[in-house]
C-alpha cells in the first residue's frame, strides 16, 4: 500500500475525532488494511498509534486543519514511547 493512500485513510479517521473514538477507529482501520494486505510496518504503526491518542491530539493541535504526515505520525510514536518510559520510571 502506498504511503499516500495509507495517510489518506489515517487522516480520514482522525479528522474531528476525539480521544475515545480514535483508538477504536484506528483499530478498525488496521483490521481493514490488514485484510487488504497492507505491509506489517504500517499495521504496526496503526497499532502503536491506537495506544497514543493523547500524543495524536498533541501533534494535531500544533497544526490545526492540516493533514498529518509520516513525520507527524513518527513524532506521535516518539512522544508516546517517551511517555511510556516516563511511566516506567515513576513506578
Amino acid at each position, binding site marked *: 500500500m502506498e504511503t499516500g493512500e495509507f495517510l489518506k485513510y489515517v487522516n480520514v*479517521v482522525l479528522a*474531528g475525532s476525539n480521544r475515545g473514538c*480514535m483508538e477504536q477507529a484506528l483499530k478498525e482501520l488496521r483490521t481493514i488494511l490488514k485484510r487488504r494486505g497492507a505491509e506489517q510496518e504500517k499495521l504496526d504503526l496503526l497499532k502503536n498509534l491506537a495506544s497514543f491518542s493523547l500524543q495524536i491530539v498533541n501533534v494535531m493541535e500544533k497544526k490545526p486543519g492540516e493533514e498529518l504526515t509520516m513525520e507527524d505520525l513518527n513524532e506521535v510514536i516518539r512522544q508516546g514511547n517517551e511517555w511510556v518510559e516516563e511511566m516506567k520510571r515513576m513506578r
Partner: protein
Amino acid sequence: MDTYLSEKYSILDGTLIALRTDETEVVIPAEVQGHRITRIGGGSCIAKNATLIRVEDGIREIGNMAFCGCTNLKKLILPEGVELCEKEMVISPLLKRGMEVLIRRKVSREQYEELLRHSFLVEGGERLVQRSEALLSVFQGVLDGFAGVRRQLDAHTLNSLMPLILDSRMKALYFVEYGGILGELSFDGQRERLNLDGPAAPSEEKEIMASQRRELVKLLLKEMPEGLYDNDSELFWDQKIRNHNKIYPNKLMLVRFQEAGVEERDGQVVIPFRLTVEKAFYATLVRIAYANKRYYVLRRNFLMGKKEMPILREDYLEEVYDETGEPVSEETRDVVLAKYLLAAKIL
C-alpha cells in the same frame, strides 16, 4: 476493494470508517453513492449535534464505541437483526449516558410468550420485561457489555452495596450502577450471583445481607424526625433514602415494548424493544402504626422518566422492621403489609 471517501461518509470495503456531520437528526444509510455499508466501524461516528440517529436496514454490525463521538445523542434506532454482540461494549456506554435505544428483534413464538409471561404493564401501555431466559437470549450482547464493567469493580465497593442488591423482590431486569455498572440483578429468585471474591454459600450470603440491611434500617430510623409521627394516621411518613446513594444503587436498565407494535412475520415475532437506563430505585421507609406499636416497611420506588412511580404491587414490598430495626415475624409482617397496602390504597 471498495473505497469511498467524502466529507460526510468514508467507507472502506463495506465498513463506515468515518461519519462527520453537524446534523441533529442523522440517518446512516446502507448505501452511499452505490457503495454498500454493512458495518459501522468502531469509533467512526462524530456527530456532536446529533440527538437522533437512525441506522437503516441492511447494516448488520456495529463496532465498539461506534457512537462515542455523538455526545448529545438521545435516541438510537437500530434495524432488526443488527449484530451487537461484540467482545466489548457497543450500546451499553450509550445506555449508561441516559440514551434511549430502540431496536427490533425477531424471536420465536415461544420466546415471545415467555417474554409476555415475564413482563407486566406499566404506564403508557408498555410492558416492562423481567429477566428471563428469553430476554437474555435476545440481549446477551448488551448484558456482556455491562458484565465487562462489573469485573473492574473492587470487592469493597460491591460489598457496601450488597444489602440492596440481594434479597429484593423487585421483578424486572436491572443493572445497578454505582460509579460504574455493578452487576446484573434479577429479583425473581433466579438472580445471578455477584462473585468477585469467589462463591459464598447461599445461606451465609443471605445472612450477611440481612444483617447489613438491618444496619441500614437502624441508620434510617435515627434520621426519621419524631415530630411527624401521628398515632391517628394509617400512613405516616416516607423517609426517602435519596441521600443514601452511596449505599443505594440509583440506576436501572429497563427493557420495555409496546404490545401494539409487535408484528408476526414468517412464523416469528418481531418486537420493538425500548432500552433505557434510568435513574431509579429510591427506597422509602414507611412508618405504620399497628396495635399501639410502630413498624417500618422498606418499600422500593422507581422513576419512569422524571416521574417517580411507587411500585404498586404487594410483592414489591420489602421487609417489615420493628422500632429497633429488627425484622418482625412473618405473621406480623403479613398484617403490617396488609395495613400498609390498605392505607396506600394499593389493595
